């Protein structure tokens, strides 16, 4: 297949993002103080967020996880800004959406057009601006945009792919749009963002051993039953006596959790799954 039908894809694997900030710095370094005709006018010296990293923390106590989500222009195949732009925003053959730094002057309405909040208003230049995928550098022969080049973990990867390959790879490797409800066919796709929409039930199981001695209990069976009659989910405690049942989307529903150990017997707790729950059981 010729390159002409292939469009740029940015794969964002949030499980590899540690919020080092290199992507954010690269984008600032590239656009602050620089003009790239046809692609971008200079970014404001400070404060712009064409590329930023959001944080999502789950859990409590010593049972936590943190997900960092790089946010930027999604270079959508059905880009609302292109539709709203009336010529001020175009989509290149390689899929990159470019807000024309001349034609878009004064078009504050374009900021509102983006469902991802990825277009920012440059007040000094009276210009809507976004991250144009370093189109000028790719045109000059650079293999990948700078945020990818500066990413130390491979959390960001960029490739030119045809739509079918992109869809197949996304489904095989577990990548999905950040906001599927926006229905814009974004070409920035995310892995690991199920954590943004799901919660976990975690906890610790221990047992008294007399004389004030408590031991973590390994190998206890943990059974979680959620309201709505779904099948129970099960796990076992690890060497720390800890367990975690993740990926629960039944937010707001009642739950009951049972801990069963062949020697110690059973214990249970119930509650409502409003957020991640961190429980503790002691035999």
């Amino acid at each position, binding site marked *: 297949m010729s390159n002409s039908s292939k469009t740029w894809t940015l794969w964002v694997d949030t499980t590899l993002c540690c*919020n080092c*900030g290199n992507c954010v710095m*690269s984008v600032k*370094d590239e656009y602050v103080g620089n003009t790239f005709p046809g692609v971008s006018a200079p970014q404001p010296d400070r404060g712009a967020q064409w590329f930023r990293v959001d944080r999502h*923390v789950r859990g409590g106590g010593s049972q936590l996880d*943190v997900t960092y989500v790089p946010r930027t222009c999604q270079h959508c195949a059905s880009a609302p800004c292109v539709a709203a732009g009336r010529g001020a925003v175009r989509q290149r053959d390689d899929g990159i959406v470019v807000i024309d730094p001349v034609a878009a002057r004064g078009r504050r309405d374009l900021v509102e057009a983006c469902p991802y909040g990825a277009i920012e208003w440059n007040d000094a230049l009276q210009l809507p601006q976004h991250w144009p995928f370093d189109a000028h550098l790719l045109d000059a022969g650079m293999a990948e945009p700078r945020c990818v080049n500066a990413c130390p973990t491979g959390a960001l990867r960029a490739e030119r792919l045809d739509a079918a390959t992109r869809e197949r790879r996304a489904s095989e490797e577990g990548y999905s749009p950040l906001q599927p409800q926006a229905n814009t066919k974004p070409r920035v796709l995310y892995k690991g963002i199920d954590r943004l929409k799901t919660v976990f039930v975690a906890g610790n199981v221990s047992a008294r051993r007399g004389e004030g001695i408590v031991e973590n209990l390994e190998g206890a069976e943990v059974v979680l039953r959620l309201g709505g009659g779904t099948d129970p989910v099960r796990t076992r405690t690890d060497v720390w006596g800890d367990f975690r049942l993740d990926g629960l989307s039944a937010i707001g529903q009642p739950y009951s959790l049972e801990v069963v150990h062949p020697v110690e017997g059973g214990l249970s707790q119930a509650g409502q799954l409003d957020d991640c729950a961190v429980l503790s059981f002691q035999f």
Partner: protein
Amino acid sequence: MSVKRALLRSILLALPMVISRAARKDRSVRTLLGARDAVLQIRLRDGSTARHYVFQAGRVRGVAGAHPAPDGEMVFKNVDVALGMLNPKPNYAVLIDAAKNFKVCAIGDPAVVWFGQLMNAVGHAGWSYGIALPDGARRYTNLTNGGPIHVDVKDGRVVRTQPIALQPEDAASWEITARGRRFRPQRKSLVSPHALALKSMVYSDKRLLYPMKRVDFDPNGERNTHNRGKSGYVRISWDEALDLVSGELRRMKTQHGLGSVAVFHPAHHQWGNINYWLSALFRFSNLIGATKMGFSPVSWEGWYWGAMHHYGNNLRLGTPGFYGTLEDCLQHAEMIVFWSSDPESTNGLYAGFEATQRRLWAKELGIEFVHIDPHFNKTAQLLGGKWIPVRPGTDPALAQAIMYQWVIDGQYDRDYIERCTAGFDEWRDHLLGVDDGVPKTPEWQEAHTGIPAKDVRSLARRWGGRKVYLGAGGLGAGFGGACRSATGDQWARCMVQLMAMQGWGKPGVNFGNLQFGTPMDLNFYFPGYADGGISGDVINTASSFHNFNRMPHVVTMNPCKQVLPRQHFPEAIIDGRCSGQPWDGTSLEGQFPRYEYPLAGHSRVHMLYRYGGSSLGTIAHSARFIEAYRHPSLEFVVNQSIWMENEVQFADVILPACTSLERWDIAEAANCAGYMVHNQNQMNHRMVVMQHKCIEPLGESKSDYQIFLDLLTRLGMGAMFSEGGCDELTWCKRIFDSSDLVGRISWKEFLRKGYYVVPPDPPEEKMSVEMRWFAEGRSKDTPEPNPLPAQYPGDYGRDLPTQSGRFEFVPNTLRRMEAVDPSRPAVNRYIASWEGVGSPQFTRYPLQLLTSHPAYTFHTYGDGKNSALNDLPDHRLRVDGRDWWVLRISPDESARRGLIQHDLVRVFNDRAAVICAVDVSPMVGNGVVKAFESCAVFEQVSTPTGMVDLGGCLNLLTPSRTMTPTADGIAPNACLVQVEKWDRVVLTEA
């Protein structure tokens, strides 16, 4: 006439033509040529050959015979000396011999230095550097505290900075095989965020672009020292600034005598072997004769004052070695315990994210992780695993309970202890409570640490008898965190005791967090910064070990033996006296003799030459510095700085320096040398980098080297400092020629391309694993930093350099000292922090403040300055148009104080008050607040509750107390504070 004499005459005859031809070709020659009108003379001592040169209006002509009053003159002893020195490719050993022994006399400093620099530029004329890009830009290379970068420049302006991607022609990468998998590193420099924010710092509106003088400072009248930090500045010329500073230097010598000038440098700076403090600054300060600052190993305190006594490594600050540990860990380890170890934040040390990929390999291989840290830090966030949120400063109690459990369960290496260690019985009895009636049980530690006893038992059992790597501190082998607290010495001692109980050195049992130990060629010589660069200082740098043998240059020696312990600078100025313990790694005992300031018969300090400004953000209880700076005994303060920040605003005169993108230098990524020998072993590829002068210095700023040269030229020492006018590019070439680059890459190609990748050793020549020799009872086969055989009780390289030659669970050195300092006992008893939970201040200040090494900046490098890094909300939070320092706090503690996310708070104790913005999350537990040290911004304002700093210098609050009376280390992580919502009322001064 002899042939030699004829040759000399023809050289002298041809000189104007050579200069003119170079001037036509090269702008920097033209600039220098036009900078001065002068008569320069070259002659033999007996007057038999003499020629002088008239430089006028950018032109030069030669005139036969002697001039009656030349501006500068070079007088050679004879023809041989003259020919040796006028050689366009001089042998510096010959040249220096001639200069030192007065075989040549250079008379008339300004003209001679200028002429030397002109001849240097003539030599460089036509040298091409950097690579042309299609769009008309030019691609240069440079090196930062956060790794090597490409710098694209167009029309004299930096367009971008980015990581260097290695090319196919660069050396191949190493490969490691572990558990059936093959691993190879990414082929690019994996830099820190501050390396990518450099452009914003270069063009910062905080740049100092011309010399300045405090408006109410009159060197001949009222100096108004009490207004330092309050009054503003007026622009002055370089001539006025240099006259003023050199005049004060002379006045100090004549009025007060030796010791009156103190030179005070930060621990870190712009990267490079020439413009570094261990290089050009030491050369300068040795030539003027100055009171030096006595440093302690601030990022390694507990290792130096504690761990070292158990096993040696005194030339490594008491930190463990790391050779060969990457492969060993990936092949054998079942678990890695990160203890006060957050390499994803601290980037190891100068190593960017080179090691992150390696930790992800460990995750892929299923190696388990444990994170012992009061903060659910970035490393724990990325890798996952068991988080054990220990109460700050109580870590030694946790460690002792682990060791106690091993004793009870029999899960320690009896064979190793028998063969390789001494004093275990005494230590075991202490763990069991035989000596003090207190068994160090998991339940015992729970009251101190807040960690449930059951978790300690689980940890001890998951660890004991298994193959476990201990990543202690950011480097995995020391650095930062818990070693910088009141119990830092105890903690670091516990770390090595833990490993000795588990057979330290056996396969899979070692120190490390995969930050170190790549299979690189460590025998390839290129100097690191502590090798002393051009300092010629063989006493206070590691110069004598390699550099001084390799690069002939003039030795410099500080005639002033007075040392001022840096942490006690305020007492020295205000009280006129203080004392300290030395940083002397040549023996275990080097740290014991106390030294006094002032030194007998020496002047107190009356002038401060400050190089950069970071004290208020980096030095414990820095609030004391404000009074010291305003003290009338400090008659003159000059600051040589790139930016207006932090304590720079307390100077009387400010000299503007430029960044590393604006001057020449040469260096290797992450190569520190000295006490951090083989620090570059964190990198995936050894990279030696030409630090191109990418752009001209902004405004009137100058390189540090040039500022020193200009000052010393006014004091008649310019030729001495510059060895006859060497410019920085010439020094780069001299360093290149002193290194193993010669024969690997030509100077021309190195200058063009800008870097060289040192190929790794072939797999069959791989480095032995650290301490394996010791565990197996062989002679040492891993690198010794610098040979000091006297350290070893037996044969050199057999056993350890302790008194017994064994790992000493109860060190002999401390046994000899414990009567003097009972708080550093030979038996590593748990002594609770003097500023922690339960100490007297705790009722009023119930929160423990942690200020660890920063994640996004390198100390103050990158913070403030309106740099792009301030846009990262994990670094600074923007509230009401200002970027505030971030304080991390738990949801409970914030709810108790009525705080919501990003509220501004007053963080305070009896020492000072600082305003921060809060980041509320469960990532810190109750009772703890976590931030970073090394704030670059200091802005004190008056409020109804007293003075507050809006910048974020939390070190204003930390204690100045030393770890123990004889362990003279900082303890900023032993700090109690209270936090309250800030009402934002600022009083305007009447």
